[in-house]
């Protein structure tokens, strides 16, 4: 679901095809009939943005038919845990959970906590957007649990306030009929899918869920994924071979860039970025951010080792290990916030390192206008992308909104080295770190970003060497002494990876994060990667051929953490440590050897007996019981219900997209109340649901990729052999819509939203069909988003149409579902385009952002 694997991950899809050929059921739930659907054993069509309704229906089916893997659920999840009496469900409050504050438009999540747990609300509520995000999902925020105060549970699952019962009540209304009414699928299809999942789960079988940005790019992105987590936990599919939830990510090292983040709100290894209010000093920070129990209990060791890696000798016990060298965040400083800051003139300079927001970001026009407000811009890429040339041939030059002469932005374009022209590591979608060796030297001025950052750093340090200004200390004290070689003085990537992996007092590389200390004696750039350079060897460069090892291929590359290929794999054995089934044995307790063993590295303390009970006062990993596989959670259990860490809901519930042609059939609340909005002139919102004026945008639109191109096209529109395969922007519509709007196959159509209007060739196809939603027919418009104004093949970019409205937890835009209008013919040119969009529809739209 939310993934078009055959088209966007074809080589990974070989394993799905193989499973199909071995008799596996492959079910594709997607708004469109794609190349994936064509390969699946069944395809269910749902309306974009209604995944939670569908998954909620599956959850209800599992619970009502009691087909959950009860033994697994009781032992390994928080189903039995009692939730605070103050908690009120969205079912009781018509779409709102307890703790809603209309003034700030945020939740106080204290009422979502476990009963009896000392409530320490995460910084999330203290200051919206701060200190949450990826870290939250990893239980980084203590839910006040500690070994002496285990959560109250009712193993019989009868307590009305236990998670299991709350779950049942919450999803009671997600009947097949209701799901059909919301999503547009047939009731029997929901039941069929749910039955297929139950049939293929349990002791002897496992089912896997695959998703991609079709789930994440929504105002309820995190909750989409949470829904799958609930299903997989209820069916006992987590931590077991053939099970799990696979996030198919779209870029070579997009996983790596969150692990070793270039993200404003986290430090390497998902350690939160310190917040001005919550984190005065190291002590406060640890107190606020670290959990007392579980893997996050040692956050102090991880952080201090990181500070040592960055500031070495300058990081001492006396100065909190230079904790104050870290700048503080005070809110949302994400890429979209940055674009707004450019428009406001507060963002002066910007680096684009292989990114093309002028085509790839929602409301692309806003980003192009924003870049034109900068003092200076550095673009590093292999070709001259739209974000580098907006000032001379951007669409706004043509519409007259911008004049080259008036744009004050100073632009530096630096050619980048290609993937074979530099050595380094990518982290793939399965957390597998694979090393690339350098094949050839880059030509001309082409350089790696490693080269650029290193030499830019040197230049800055040289210029400020004499400075006494305290604000320059972090830069001058920075450890920046990487060995260089080659004709261009390239810094050694191995040296950097070694620093990431870390070393001990003796200067020898560490073999695991468990060796990290909070006393400043260890150094580690990213705790979860600790061990990737174990034994002073680049473990990521291991290339033992697959035919020389088991199918787990533990000696090909290195997977974080600790080269574990399946996370929480202790769950592949029952509470006593015996495999749930012989067919599905993976990691188990070897009674004779008194240790965990199996096909994979155990994701568990290897010598912890299954019957281990944490002694009083135990903390961190010692506080994880022998039968609790989910070691990063403070209670070691899989969370069906999330007591803390999320800003928008403890349980996934259906909300309509921010812009939808239909109202929410479940609640008076249409869209997710906690969603993050950024209404402004360049980001006009449309009326939604049955609000006045919403009729002007009657169709659902969604964006997607094609196999033949790559994201915003920077790596495919200039490649002849790819460009010729999909040479032009087109939109996919069903015959019904074509008839309704007079669209002719092969002709042009103009797609309109409050942001912009784009033109595309019309592809009339049965692969896109209308959906019966609440008694009315909702047509869909499908839009690939690969094209821009440059390259061998050009075209309007679909992202011009989409609003900037974000998931509050992770600030990811809703790019997969919005409302639009479509009409035959090409769009107006020049100034006429803006006038056309502004005056659309004839009756003026309500004031910006009002809902």
């Amino acid at each position: 679901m939310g993934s078009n694997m055959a088209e966007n991950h074809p080589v990974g899809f070989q394993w799905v095809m193989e499973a199909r050929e071995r008799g596996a059921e492959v079910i594709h739930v997607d708004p469109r009939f794609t190349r994936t659907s064509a390969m699946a054993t069944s395809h269910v069509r749902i309306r974009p943005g209604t995944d939670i309704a569908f998954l909620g229906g599956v959850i209800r089916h599992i619970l009502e038919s009691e087909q959950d893997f009860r033994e697994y659920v009781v032992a390994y999840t928080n189903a039995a845990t009692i939730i605070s009496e103050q908690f009120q469900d969205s079912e009781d409050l018509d779409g709102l959970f307890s703790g809603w504050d209309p003034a700030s438009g945020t939740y106080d999540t204290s009422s979502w906590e476990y009963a009896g747990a000392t409530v320490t609300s995460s910084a999330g509520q203290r200051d919206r957007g701060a200190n949450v995000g990826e870290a939250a999902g990893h239980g980084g925020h203590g839910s006040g649990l500690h070994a002496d105060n285990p959560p109250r549970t009712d193993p019989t699952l009868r307590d009305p306030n236990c998670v299991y019962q709350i779950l049942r009540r919450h999803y009671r209304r997600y009947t097949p009929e209701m799901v059909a009414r919301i999503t547009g699928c047939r009731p029997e299809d929901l039941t069929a899918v749910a039955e297929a999942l139950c049939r293929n789960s349990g002791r002897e079988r496992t089912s896997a869920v695959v998703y991609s940005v079709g789930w994440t790019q929504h105002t309820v992105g995190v909750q989409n994924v949470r829904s799958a987590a609930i299903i997989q936990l209820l069916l006992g599919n987590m931590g077991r071979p053939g099970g799990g939830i696979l996030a198919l990510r779209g870029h070579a090292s997009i996983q790596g860039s969150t692990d070793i983040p270039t993200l404003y709100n986290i430090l390497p290894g998902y350690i939160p970025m310190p917040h001005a209010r919550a984190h005065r000093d190291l002590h406060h920070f640890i107190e606020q951010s670290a959990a007392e129990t579980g893997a996050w209990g040692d956050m102090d060791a991880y952080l201090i080792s990181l500070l040592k890696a960055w500031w070495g000798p300058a990081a001492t016990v006396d100065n909190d290990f230079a904790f104050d060298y870290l700048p503080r965040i005070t809110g949302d400083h994400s890429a979209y916030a940055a674009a707004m800051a450019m428009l406001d003139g507060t963002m002066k300079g910007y680096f684009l390192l292989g990114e093309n927001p002028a085509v790839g970001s929602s409301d692309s026009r806003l980003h192009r206008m924003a870049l034109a407000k900068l003092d200076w811009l550095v673009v590093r890429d292999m070709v001259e992308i739209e974000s580098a040339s907006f000032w001379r041939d951007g669409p706004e030059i043509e519409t007259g909104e911008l004049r080259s002469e008036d744009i004050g932005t100073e632009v530096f374009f630096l050619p980048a080295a290609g993937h074979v022209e530099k050595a380094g590591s990518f982290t793939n979608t399965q957390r597998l770190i694979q090393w690339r060796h350098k094949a050839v030297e880059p030509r001309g001025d082409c350089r790696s970003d490693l080269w650029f950052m290193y030499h830019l750093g040197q230049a800055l340090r040289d210029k400020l060497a004499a400075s006494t200004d305290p604000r320059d200390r972090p830069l001058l004290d920075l450890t920046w002494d990487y060995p260089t070689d080659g004709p261009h003085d390239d810094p050694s990537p191995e040296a950097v990876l070694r620093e990431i992996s870390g070393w001990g007092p003796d200067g020898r590389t560490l073999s695991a994060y468990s060796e990290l200390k909070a006393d400043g004696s260890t150094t580690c750039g990213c705790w979860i990667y600790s061990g990737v350079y174990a034994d002073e060897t680049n473990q990521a460069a291991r290339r033992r051929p697959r035919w020389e090892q088991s199918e787990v291929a533990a000696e090909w590359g290195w997977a974080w953490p600790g080269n574990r290929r399946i996370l929480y794999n202790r769950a592949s054995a029952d509470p006593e440590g015996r495999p749930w089934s012989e067919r599905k044995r993976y990691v188990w307790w070897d009674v004779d050897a008194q240790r965990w063993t199996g096909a994979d590295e155990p994701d568990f303390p290897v010598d912890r007996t299954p019957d281990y009970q944490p002694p009083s006062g135990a903390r961190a990993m010692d506080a994880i019981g022998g039968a609790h596989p989910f070691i990063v959670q403070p209670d070691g259990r899989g969370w069906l219900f999330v007591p803390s860490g999320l800003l928008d809901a403890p349980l996934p519930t259906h909300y309509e997209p921010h812009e939808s042609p239909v109202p929410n059939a479940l609640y008076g609340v249409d869209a997710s109340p906690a969603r993050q909005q950024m209404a402004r002139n360049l980001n006009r919102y449309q009326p939604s649901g049955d609000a006045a004026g919403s009729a002007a945008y009657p169709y659902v639109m969604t964006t997607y990729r094609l196999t033949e191109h790559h994201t915003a096209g920077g790596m495919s529109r200039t490649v002849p052999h790819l460009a010729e395969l999909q040479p032009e922007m087109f939109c996919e519509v069903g015959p019904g819509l074509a008839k309704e709007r007079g669209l002719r196959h092969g002709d042009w159509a103009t797609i309109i939203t409050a942001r912009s209007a784009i033109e595309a060739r019309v592809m009339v196809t049965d692969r896109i069909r209308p959906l019966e939603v609440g008694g009315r027919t909702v047509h869909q418009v499908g839009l690939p988003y690969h094209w821009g104004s440059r390259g061998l093949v050009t075209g309007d970019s679909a992202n011009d149409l989409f609003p900037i409205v974000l998931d509050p937890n992770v600030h990811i835009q809703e790019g997969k579902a919005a409302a639009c209008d479509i009409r035959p013919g090409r769009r107006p040119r020049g100034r006429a385009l803006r006038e056309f969009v502004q005056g659309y529809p004839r009756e003026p739209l309500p004031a910006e952002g009002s809902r």
Partner: protein
Amino acid sequence: MRSRLPMLANALPTGAGDGAPPARVGFFTDTTLCIGCKACEVACKEWNDVPADGYVWSGKSYDNTGELSANSWRHVAFIEQDRPLRVTTSASTPSMLGSAPAMVGIALPMMRDLPVRAARSEPAPFEIGTGPDGDGVAMRWLMSSDVCKHCTDAACLDVCPTGALVRTELGTVVVQNDVCNGCGYCVSACPFGVIGRREIEGDPGHGLAQKCTLCYDRSKDGLEPACAKACPTASIQFGELDELRVRAADRLGVVQAAGYDGAQLYGASPDDGVGGFGAFFLLLDRPEVYGLPPDPVATTRHLPSIWGAAAAAAGVLGGLVALAALGRRS
């Protein structure tokens, strides 16, 4: 018309003379496994330096390549049909284990014992593609990677007046770029419309007949052709032709048992009009739906009658002149 003179039989050459001839190699393209990714098209162009030849959107489903030509040696066809892929109530396809080694032997150890399930008893939730399409109409999207057939009786090879087209020791049909003079005879002789003359000024292959070489340089070196190596789902299978034919027969059985509608082998039989393809297919509909001729015949099979008629006509011409000459002086 099956009869042909023995002298026209396209007997495969005996290797390089010394030792046993290498086995004939070819492709088995199993379209039930094709996901339409076009990796074959790109891998082919990259390896053989085949130029891109234009950026025109066709509107023909996802096919913007259109046809096999001098500049496209692999071509993935896309056909959207309003009918289910399978006419069966089985929820899952029986295994193809044993029929395609390329897809086998990589399961996790604990799954090794997993008995390969034949079509399961439980009724399917619903047919592939029928999904809940409001209107409940079923659909399927056929994809197939077409390529030069490397015919046993190759008309292009027969009619080539320069000997540029040759049958290699591997049984494949290849153009010698240094010999071809671009006469274009092969273009009209091919019953599949595969081979073409490249017309791109400045390109090394300009003016020359161009088509799939089954990566002769690779295959003579024991390497897989670029397309087969790239194919993510083993839809394109390369190997010794005899072995491929056996594999294809097995696979057809599996696919038919699974109820795939219209499953048929195309070009696998040595008895057809071109003596069997060196690159044959498992299709899910009639060949013409994929743009393939249903019953191709190598034109040179009719060469006896062609030469016969030409000779007779020449005789008639001579006779006419002779008669006229014998006529009395008027």
